[in-house]
């Protein structure tokens, strides 16, 4: 209710700001009392709705559950859902609205890197907290952001390690195929450097970028096939973005590329994407994540049951970014309780070191670099659209927010504990503020 009143006021603001600026603008006193607001900043329409809508739903579930447990610090939580409509400037606008108008205590949101980059200045300026739940390219470490998705070393590098192992087929030749944007570009640069370090020759690496929403994969898949017929075991590392994956996999199936010939390991294909595909031709292709729906733990089973009950849909899948929000939300709750306040600064400080259970039977800890520790799983696509774990890292992996394999960032670390409190500390120069 409160929120609608708020919106009506904004409405007035927009409409009459030109004519009657002076009468408006009384800020709403923050009603300390019954509810504390939490922003949910995920696209519900446009191209990203396909991925982000689920994350909005999981946030509603988590907040609902927390309220049933009595809320946080005795206060009820209230989700403020907005639709940034897959429009990047709108993300910034909505973030500003959530923080400055709705006075949310923290935000959970964004999927694409560009949406995160778009809201970043807003979170810094207004000093609020963003939990970002998606695997991303790294090379960032901001005080106001907690990265609950995987950094490249928590997903891409273990996947490549697996494929290079005897178990994974001792791959010698690599196709790095991605959509042309920053996450694939950066990940592929890291992988390229890593592969070369492992003795892979330049001619054994093929890099290919395609535009967003690429739907005609005939040429590229046949190129991959050709590249793979040179007599060395070949694998494809796919950073192809959501929408383009279905036609890509359909073409793989059509051109008869089997996982036993040229396995494809993907970093952006989860249960949700597979639910939209006929997976029979894809059996044996791989994905690398920090969570699979099929992971057999009591925590996960309970989570899935609650999710089905909450959405009233026993077929809704769960996926990795959902787990990231689960971890992020619980960590936030724990940090708020530890700090005894909802204020951003103390909570940011309190978050470091917080350890909460993840869904795969262990604990994930928020590290000083604002990333979390994660196990890495390699899963095989099964005929039922689920991932079957074929390999996992022996322990938890700590995120490398700055990749040691990139020239520009190899000397950087982030550590937001006092006294360092720096997102890009140069260990070589011994000072905060980047490489130079």
């Amino acid at each position, binding site marked *: 209710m409160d929120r609608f009143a708020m919106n009506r006021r904004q409405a007035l603001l927009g409409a009459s700001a030109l004519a009657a600026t002076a009468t408006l603008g009384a800020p709403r006193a923050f009603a300390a009392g019954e509810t504390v607001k939490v922003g949910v900043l995920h696209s519900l329409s446009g191209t990203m709705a396909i991925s982000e809508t689920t994350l909005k739903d999981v946030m509603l579930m988590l907040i609902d559950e927390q309220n049933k447990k009595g809320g946080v610090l005795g206060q009820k939580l209230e989700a403020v859902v907005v639709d940034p409509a897959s429009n990047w400037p709108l993300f910034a606008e909505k973030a500003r609205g959530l923080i400055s108008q709705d006075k949310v205590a923290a935000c959970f949101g964004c999927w694409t890197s*560009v949406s995160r980059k778009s809201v970043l200045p807003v979170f810094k300026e207004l000093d609020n907290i963003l939990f970002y739940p998606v695997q991303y390219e790294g090379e960032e470490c901001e005080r106001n952001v907690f990265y609950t998705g995987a950094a490249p070393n928590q997903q891409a590098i273990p996947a490549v390690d697996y494929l290079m192992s005897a178990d994974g087929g001792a791959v010698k030749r690599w196709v790095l195929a991605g959509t042309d944007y920053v996450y694939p570009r950066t990940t592929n640069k890291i992988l390229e450097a890593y592969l070369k370090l492992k003795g892979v020759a330049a001619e054994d690496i093929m890099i290919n970028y395609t535009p967003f929403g690429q739907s005609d994969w005939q040429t590229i898949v046949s190129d991959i096939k050709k590249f793979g017929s040179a007599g060395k075991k070949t694998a494809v590392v796919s950073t192809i973005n959501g929408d383009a994956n279905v036609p890509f996999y359909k073409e793989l199936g059509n051109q008869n590329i089997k996982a036993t010939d040229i396995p494809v390991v993907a970093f952006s294909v989860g249960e949700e994407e597979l639910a939209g595909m006929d997976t029979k031709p894809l059996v044996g292709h791989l994905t690398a994540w920090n969570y699979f729906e099929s992971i057999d733990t009591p925590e996960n089973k309970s989570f899935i049951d609650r999710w089905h009950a909450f959405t009233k849909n026993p077929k809704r899948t769960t996926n990795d970014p959902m787990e990231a929000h689960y971890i992020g939300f619980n960590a936030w709750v724990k940090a708020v309780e530890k700090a005894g306040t909802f204020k951003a600064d103390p909570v940011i400080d309190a978050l470091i070191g917080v350890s909460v259970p993840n869904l795969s039977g262990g604990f994930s800890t928020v590290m000083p670099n604002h990333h979390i520790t994660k196990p890495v799983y390699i899963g095989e696509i099964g005929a039922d659209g689920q991932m079957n774990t074929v390999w996992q890292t022996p322990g938890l992996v700590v995120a490398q927010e700055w990749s040691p394999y990139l020239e520009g960032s190899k000397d950087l670390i982030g550590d937001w504990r006092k006294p360092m409190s720096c997102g890009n500390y140069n260990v070589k120069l011994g000072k905060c503020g980047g490489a130079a």
Partner: protein
Amino acid sequence: MQNHRTFGPRGLVFLAVLLAAAALVPASSLLTPAGSALHLSTYAVTLVGKYLCYALLALSLDLVWGYCGILCLGQGAFFALGGYAMGMYLMRQIGARGSYANPDLPDFMVFLNYHSLPWTWWGFSSFPYAVLMALAVPGALALVFGYFAFRSRVTGVYLSIITQALTYALLLAFFRNEMGFGGNNGLTDFKDILGHDVRSDGTRAALFATSCVALALGYVVAAAVTGSKFGQVTVAIRDAESRVRFLGYRVEHYKTLVFTLSAMMAGMAGALYVPQVGIINPGEFAPANSIEAVIWVAVGGRGTLVGAALGAVLVNWGKTYFTGAFPEYWLFLLGGLFVLVTLFLPQGILGLVDRLTARRRPGPPAERPVAPEEQVLPRPVAE
């Protein structure tokens, strides 16, 4: 005959409101305490500032569409190019404060292994140069594109579709990281403009005031153009192109000139937009954005400059409101609005206002000159 009353009463009110807002809004935002009834939050200032940039974009589109019959479905391209010019200046202002602290190269160039600044970026550390480019690049593109298209007499739907192809091609091109404009992420995380922190309330208020003034200036230019004999010729071209040609006017020159002028206005709008929203990325080139801009103009009333600006503000305010209030259903409302406006308000809101007021007045006085923004437009002739 010649229309000497360039602005008309509505235009004067519009200008007055804009200039008053330029003075009062910053005052309210900066000088009054946060609790005061007179205080405007930074959020509101930024939001309305953004709407004003859209209004300028709508105005530029109305100039070509409402007054010359050129339905450009690529107006967003000029807006985005202007935005990129400003974004490049803002990127250069970051200097060594980026994550990698490279004094010469923006962050994205560092991790894409650039060793030196590409030539396209030369000069952008200078503000006047960036502003010049924000005008010149869209202007030059429109000049070249328009000259060839209008010389070949590409009109109507064909022109609309190739302008759409233009912006779509630019969208794809700017997505490419090889272009050196930051690829999909575009340019963001700006720090300073002209030595002032872009995130400070003072800078925001100043940007707001600048947007008001720019919109007012844009209006004055557009009204002067449409009120001149040149404007009469463009309206004549809109209504009966071949008649104009057989009268001996070089239609292609007129169209090219008005198209170029409009592109420059759109570029200026983009340049003001970027520091206020804090990001410019290829998404601004998306054909859908340009179509939306057309719809703002249609909603407000095409061929009425004030209406175009009003339409932009109203539709965007509606979008802000609905995406917050009804995140799941706002597209129904927005889509429904477009359908209803086209069906029932073919002349837009101001067109409706004009019709209603015209009915109340018993016939216009014979000698009263018809100001362009007061004209009731007919339905466009079939292409």
